[in-house]
């Protein structure tokens, strides 16, 4: 009994202590938990602030990034080794960087595009493209381009980075030097209709070499120097040929002129152009071309592409002194003043000339699998269709007896072609047909291997063949159309009455990005 009482007493004493201590401990735990809760709340709040900060930073970064996505960067580099078989070539084998271009395209808002494309060749930086383009956002049909850009022609607009052979055709290089021109262009390409119309207006002197009296090019910066503008137009239409391929056909025309820069203009056959005898005259640059590209699926891609172009291409000349136009005498009779005007013309140092030309090119391209491509091209360019091969190098109106045609007297030596009846001065033709009038046919064979979408290697062999031109002296066996060259101090010359070997082997590596 005593034991029980003792236990109860002990329990009675301990229980309140236990209760009190438990309560105290519980209170402590609650306090700790409250503290922890507060700490967690603080941490959450801190984290929320941090997240908000990160979100703000992301929003700012996204805004900056969206600006950057409006800028596109592309370009390509072509490094090549060439072996030149022409006797005049020295060195006859060389490494070179043919192209090193970066294209910056900026589209700040949909439909407005700015393009700048410099070309970095060693020792020289030139601007190839610099234009802005406004695209119609509603009909998605019209676009206007202004600045410096490719002239609308198939081979001109076909990028060098995609071309199946190393260089453009000779006729295209002759009539569209440097490919680009400064001006404006309207393009009409309705969606869902495979029709494209391009209309352009240019200064017209881009890429031309125009010598002054001392032979210095007066057109190094391609800034315009006459009031005349050149017009160009091109139309193409594409037909689908079921699942086997398609055919694109088109035509383009060039209607332009350039200041003669000389007193006199010659016809294509090197006769004097009487109708063009006026101060500030222009020489014509008019031609048309017809093109077709056939794509046919025959064991993989197969393409046959070609273009035929013909017309008149004017080349400015130069004069040694300016023309003087002044009233020389005046008489007053019966209240009528009569002015007698005499025009003094100086002797032209080199007349301008309008040459009739024609040219064409045909490509046959076959892709083998995804990586291999073979291409063959034949191109032909006759820069002067009014002269036969044996007339080149000979003056049309030679010396000896004089001739009068349409009141123009042709007389004298080789250098004098006419007496100008209007100005009473001697018109001098010191421009004789020659190497610039020789027609060329060129075969090009090329093989391209595509390592991937960015890298390709091309091996090509180009065989240009001049038309045998000029008259051969029976005694010496030498032709009268020649050009001189010097290699390692040894002078020699080409005789164009033979086909001159000028073949070129090219090994080109291209990286595009």
């Amino acid at each position, binding site marked *: 009994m005593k034991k029980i009482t003792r236990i109860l007493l002990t329990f009675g004493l301990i229980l309140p202590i236990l209760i009190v201590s438990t309560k105290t401990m519980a209170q402590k735990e609650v306090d700790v938990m409250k503290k922890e809760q507060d700490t967690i709340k603080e941490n959450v709040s801190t984290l929320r602030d941090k997240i908000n900060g990160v979100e703000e930073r992301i929003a700012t970064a996204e805004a900056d990034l969206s600006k950057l996505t409006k800028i596109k960067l592309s370009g390509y580099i072509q490094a090549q080794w060439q072996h030149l078989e022409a006797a005049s070539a020295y060195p006859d084998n060389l490494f070179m960087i043919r192209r090193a271009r970066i294209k910056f395209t900026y589209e700040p808002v949909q439909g407005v595009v700015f393009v700048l494309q410099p070309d970095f060749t060693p020792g020289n930086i030139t601007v190839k493209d610099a234009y802005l383009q406004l695209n119609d956002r509603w009909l998605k049909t019209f676009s206007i381009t202004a600045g410096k850009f490719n002239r609308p022609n198939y081979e001109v607009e076909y990028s060098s980075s995609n071309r199946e052979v190393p260089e453009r055709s000779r006729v295209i290089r002759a009539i569209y030097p440097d490919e680009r021109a400064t001006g404006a262009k309207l393009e009409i390409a309705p969606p869902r209709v495979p029709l494209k119309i391009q209309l352009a207006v240019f200064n017209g002197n881009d890429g031309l070499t125009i010598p002054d009296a001392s032979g210095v090019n007066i057109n190094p910066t391609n800034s315009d120097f006459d009031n005349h503008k050149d017009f160009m137009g091109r139309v193409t239409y594409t037909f689908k040929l079921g699942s086997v391929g398609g055919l694109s056909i088109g035509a383009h025309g060039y209607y332009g002129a350039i200041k003669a820069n000389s007193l006199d203009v010659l016809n294509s056959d090197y006769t004097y152009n009487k109708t063009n005898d006026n101060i500030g005259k222009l020489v014509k640059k008019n031609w048309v071309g017809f093109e077709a590209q056939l794509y046919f699926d025959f064991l993989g*891609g197969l393409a046959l592409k070609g273009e035929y172009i013909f017309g008149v291409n004017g080349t400015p000349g130069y004069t040694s002194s300016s023309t003087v136009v002044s009233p020389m005498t005046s008489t007053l009779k019966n209240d009528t003043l009569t002015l007698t005007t005499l025009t003094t013309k100086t002797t032209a140092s080199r007349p301008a000339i309008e040459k009739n030309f024609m040219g064409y090119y045909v490509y046959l391209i076959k892709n083998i699998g995804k990586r291999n491509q073979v291409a063959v091209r034949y191109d032909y360019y006759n820069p002067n269709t009014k002269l036969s091969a044996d007339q080149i190098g000979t003056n049309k109106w030679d010396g000896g007896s004089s001739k009068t045609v349409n009141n123009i007297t042709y007389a004298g030596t080789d250098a004098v072609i006419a007496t100008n009846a209007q100005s009473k001065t001697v018109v001098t033709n010191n421009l004789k047909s020659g190497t610039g009038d020789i027609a060329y046919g060129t075969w090009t064979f090329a093989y391209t291997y595509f390592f991937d979408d960015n890298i390709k290697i091309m091996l090509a062999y180009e065989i240009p063949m001049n038309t045998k031109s000029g008259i051969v002296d029976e005694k010496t066996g030498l032709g009268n159309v020649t050009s001189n060259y010097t290699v390692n101090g040894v002078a020699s010359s080409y005789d164009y009455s033979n086909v001159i070997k000028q073949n070129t082997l090219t090994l080109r590596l291209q990286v595009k990005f």
Partner: protein
Amino acid sequence: MKNFKKAKLSLGLLIVAMIGFAFMPAPTKITVKGSDTMVILAQKWAEVYMKSHQDVIIQVTGGGSGTGISALINGATDICNSSRPMKSSEIDKLKERYASMGVEIPCAKDGITIFLNESNPVSELSVKQLAGIFSGKIRNWKEVGGPDQDIKLYGRENSSGTYVFFKDNVVKADYAASCQTLPGTAAVVNAVSKDKFGIGYGGAAYAAGVKHCKVKKDDKGVAYFATAETIAKGQYPITRYLYMYLRNRPTGQTKAYIDWILSPEGQKLVTDIGYFPVK
């Protein structure tokens, strides 16, 4: 001696077997890439076809029509799925790289469906109203007969053919800046199903958890759901073809696969998935 002969025989058989295996034809691999709208359909085609053609492996990935076309041009895929026709600039790239204009195969029809949240009282919209909504000119549901609440726009990324098609044929302007872009129609459907005041667009095959909105050509016209019948009759105003593109005419196993897709068996799967057959 006997063991030695056995070993020689075994070795001989092993070599013959190894040579035999070496000359056994490896399974043909066909890669398919492109439209996210078509990815479910393309996966179903591949899955069913591979069951009956074990010598073929078909690998299907999405990424969007634009991504698929780029992959076709750079040689990374054999077949490109696209929910829009190729642009002339893209065909030009094929011409330049492969001397080919590519091969276009329409393989299904789709009615672009307008998705609304199931609780949204609006049940039909005209094409003009859709243009206003997605260009940001109409911003409140009450302007089209709904509650006085802001409209939440959900759309696709700009690499998507559906994005391009909807923009060119319905919106005919820039999308509103508030339009949230999502990767794939499934993501659009998911977002609209969770947003009472959301609206999205996408392929007809995606519909779980959202309601389809009837569409009418103009304000006075009759509104239709995108069904096989309304699409066949030209009543549903937002329809399009779904395409497969190849660099060249298909040959071998690729041709057999495409022929099968265009066969009644392949076209039945088009209907099963929720699109509409071309034949």
